C-alpha cells in the first residue's frame, strides 16, 4: 500500500524532495518533511489531501500521524482547497498595534468573505496567520508568496486591482 501511496507524488516532486533529503544524514530523512509537504502541496494546486499526507509519510518512512501533526501545525500548509490567490494577514501583536484589524475588515468587506474562507469564484482565500517577521513595516500580509507591507485600505485596493 505504501508503494501505491508514494506514486501519488509526481516524479518531479520526488526528485525535488530527494534534493532536500540529501541535505540531511541518511537516517534523518524525516528532516525533509516540511519541504516535502510544501512540494506535495504545490503539486496539488496549493493544498494537501489526506492521501498526499500519507504519500509524504510513506516516502520519508514516517508515521502518518507525525506528518499530519506538522501539516496541521504550520499555517502555510492547507488542508482544504484554496483559491487562486491566498492572502495571509498577520494579526500578531505588532501588526495588531499598527492596525491589522482595519486590514482584515477591509479585506473581508471587499472580498465578501470571512477569515478562513474562499470566495465563491475560487479567486481568493483569506486567512489569519501569526507573525511573519515583517513587524518593522506592520501591518502586512503575504499574497502568493510576496510580502506587502505598510498596508492601508487604499494600498490594498491597488494591490488587489492589479491581480488577474
Amino acid at each position, binding site marked *: 500500500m505504501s508503494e501505491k501511496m508514494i506514486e501519488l507524488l509526481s516524479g518531479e516532486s520526488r526528485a525535488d524532495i530527494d534534493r532536500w533529503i540529501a541535505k540531511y544524514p541518511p537516517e534523518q530523512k524525516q528532516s525533509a518533511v516540511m519541504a516535502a509537504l510544501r512540494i506535495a502541496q504545490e503539486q496539488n494546486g496549493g493544498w494537501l489531501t489526506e492521501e498526499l499526507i500519507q504519500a509524504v509519510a510513506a516516502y520519508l518512512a514516517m508515521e*502518518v*500521524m*507525525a506528518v*499530519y*501533526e506538522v*501539516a496541521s*501545525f*504550520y499555517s502555510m500548509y492547507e488542508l482544504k482547497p484554496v483559491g487562486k490567490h491566498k492572502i495571509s494577514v498577520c494579526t500578531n501583536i505588532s501588526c495588531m498595534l499598527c492596525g491589522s484589524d482595519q486590514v482584515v475588515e477591509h479585506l473581508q468587506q471587499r472580498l465578501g468573505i470571512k477569515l478562513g474562507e474562499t470566495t465563491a469564484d475560487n479567486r481568493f482565500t483569506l486567512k489569519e496567520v501569526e507573525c511573519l517577521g515583517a513587524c518593522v513595516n506592520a501591518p502586512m500580509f503575504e499574497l502568493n508568496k510576496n510580502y506587502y507591507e505598510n498596508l492601508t485600505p487604499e494600498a490594498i485596493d491597488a494591490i488587489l486591482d492589479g491581480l488577474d
Partner: protein
Amino acid sequence: MVNIEINGKPVAAREGSMLLEAADEAGITIPRFCYHSKLSIAASCRMCLVEVEKVPKPLPACATPVSEGMKAYTRSPRAIAAQRSVMEFLLINHPLDCPICDQGGECELQEMALGYGNDVSRYAEAKRVVHSPDLGPLIATDMSRCIHCTRCVRFGEEIGGMMELGAPGRGEHMHIATYMEHSVDSELSGNVVDLCPVGALTSKPYRYSARPWELQSHHTVSPHDCVGTNIRLDSRSGRAMRVVARDNEAVNECWIADRDRFSYTALEHEDRLRKPQIKRDGVWQECDWDTALTTAVEGLKQFAADQLGALAAYGATNEEHFLLQRLMRGIGSANIDHRLRQQDFRDQNEQGPYPALGQPIAALEQNDAVLLVGSNIRKEQPLLAQRLRKAVRGGARVMAINPVDYAMAFTLAEKRIALDLVSELLAVAKALLEGSSEAVPQWLTTAIVGVAVEESHRAIAGTLRAGKQASVLLGAGAQGHPAAAELRAVANLIASLSGAHIGILAEGGNAAGAALAGCLPHRGAGCQASDGIGLDWKAMFAAKLPGYLLLGVEPEYDCIDSAAALQAMQEARFVVAINSYASVAMRDYADVLLPAATFAETAGSLVNTEGQWQGFNGAATAPGEARPAWKILRVLGNLFDINGFEQNSAEEVRAELEAACAQLPAAPAAWQPKAMSRLPAGLLRIADVPIYAVDAMVRRAAPLQTTADADLWQIRLNSVTAEKAGFSSVVEARLIQGAGEVVLPLLIDERLPDNAVYLPAGLSATVGLGGGFAAVELTHA
C-alpha cells in the same frame, strides 16, 4: 553521584537524572502530569515548576538535569505561586464534569487541583470544546478533558510501536486525535487508559459502571500468555468491574496487554456455567453437586483406568494441573495432556522440565541479536515483544524465520518467510558451519546436504554469532509445527553453535506450571518419571478412548487438530467437563458439566516463562454454584477414594507441588532426529491461534472480539497463489481439509508465502478443521 540540595535537605542524585527523579528517590513529591518514568520527557504541562537557586525563572523539574551544588526549592513561595498559576491555566479549559467523569476519584488533575487550585475560577469566558474521536471498542474518549500531557501519544510512539494517536493543530487548536478517525488497534492500547492523568481516555467496557471508591482491589495474575502479567482486578460486592495494570518491573513493568485488561468482560458471559448439570436421555438437567459428582465418578468408573483420558487447559492453575494428574494417576491412568497446541511429541523425554525462556524476561532487552522462529510474538506475547522492541531501539537486530510476514512493532533486520521452517533453520545451521570445524552430530551433517544457503541465512548466522547476548526464540508456530521436534533440535544446535540462548515462548497461560505439575503423560509432578507412560492427546484420540475428564478446555477450539478433537469427543461414551463455560459442541458431547471458577474467582498460582511462581487469591465471587476447580478435583479424589486429596487450601496444594519441584532434574541429552520430515506438497494451511482466541475466556470477551485483531474470518492467499489456483477475482471460497470444510470470504494477503492458505485456528468458523501445515483444497464456493 551528584550532590544537590532539595528544600534544604542534602540529596545524592544519580548522574544525569532529572531534578524530579532525584526528588522522587528522596521521597520529596513534586506535582506533575506529563512526566512518566517509562516515557520520554515532554516537559509540556509545567506542573512541576520549582525554584532553583541563582536561576531567575522557575524551572520544570522533570526536564532539569541535576548539577553539583544545585539548590532547589519545591515548596518556596515562588515555586508554589508558579505551580498554582499552572494549575489555574490547566483548569481554564477543563470542563467541570467531574460528577459524570469516570476518572473522578482517581484523577490526577482532581487531586492536584485540591492541593494547588483556587476555590473559585477567575475565568468566566467560554471553554474549549474538543471533538472526541471513536477509538474503537476498548477506549472511550472525552477530549475536552484532555490537558495535553501527550503521555498517550508518547506511549504509542515509544512503547506500543504505532503512532496511532497524535497531537495535530497548534496552540488553542491542538488536540489529541487519530489520523482520519481511525480506531486504535494496538494490542497494548489499553495502557493509555492507565496513563491518561485525567478522564480524557477511559475504559469503554468499564464506562459508567462503578466509582473507584466503591471498588476493592485485588492483586492477581493474568493467565492468557506465558508472561505472568501482574494485574489488579477491582471488584464491587464480589463482581469484577475492571482490570488495570500492576507494576512489576521484572515481569510486565507497568504495562499490560489488552487481552489481560479486558478478558474479565467474559466473566458474565451467557455461556457461563452456574450450576452442575447432568445429561439424562439427552436432556440437560441441573442438579446438586453431590448428584453431579457421583454421576461423574460412576460414569468414569465404568471403563478400565487406561481407557480414561484427561485433557487440561494451558491456563489452568498449578494446583488444578497438579490435582488433575494426581487424580488420573491415582485412578491408574497416565493418559494426561495439556499440550493441545502441539502435535509432535517425539522429543518429549529429552525436553527440559518446562518450556522456558531461558533468561529473565527483563534480560530480553539486553539482547543484541535475536532470531524468532515461528512466532508472531507481538500477538502471542505482547509484553515480550515490547521488551524486544526496546532492545531494537537500543540497536539490537531482531530477525525472524516465519510462515507469515507478521507485522512486528519494530523493523526486522532479516527475515525468511517460508512454509518449510525446518529447511530454513537447516540453512542457518549450515551457514554457521561454513568454514567452521566444530564437531556436530551426524544427523545434522546428513540433514544439511543439499540445503541451499542464501545470503540472508548467512546474515542471520553471522548476526547471531556476532551478538554478545543472542537468543533463538521458538514461538507458537514452531511449537505447534508437525516437525516441532526437529525444529527444536536444529534450533538448539544453532544456539550452541552461535553461542546464543535458546528460549521457548510457550503457548497458553501456564504451560510451565502444567509441565511442572506433571500434567503430562510421560512425567509426573516435579518432572519425576511417570509410573507407566500414558498417551498424549493424539494417541488418546487415535485410541478412541471412551471416557474423558476435561479441565478448562474446549478441545474443539483449544486443540490444534479441531477435527480430531471434535470427533474424539463426539465418539467418547462419557465426558466430564470441569469448566467455567460450555460451548455448543460441549453441550452436545459432554455428559456431566461441573461449573468451575475462573482464575479471577479462585486462589492459585501460575509459573511464568522465566520460572517465576506467582500466587493469587480469588478476586471476585464465582457465579451461582461454580466452585474452584482444585476443590472439585479434591472431592473427585475423595470419591474415587484416592490418597492425597486432603488439602484444605490452594496453598496446601501448592506447597506439595513446590516440594515436588524442589529438585528438578537437569535437562536430558538432546534428541537426535533420524531423517528430516517433509511437508506435504500442494496448498498448505497456516493455522496460527489469533491473539483473541487463545482460551475459553478470551474467546468470550465481547470487546476484544470486536477489535481489528479479531477480524480474521477470511481465507487468505497471496496474489501469486491466488492466480495460480484461479482465485484472483473470487470473493468467496470453500476450504476443504479432510472431512471438514468452510466457506469464507477470500482475501489477498501478500504477507504469505506461495502455496500457503491462511485460516487461523480457534475460531468458531474453523471448528472441525484439521491443524496447520497440512494439505487443504480450495474450491469455488
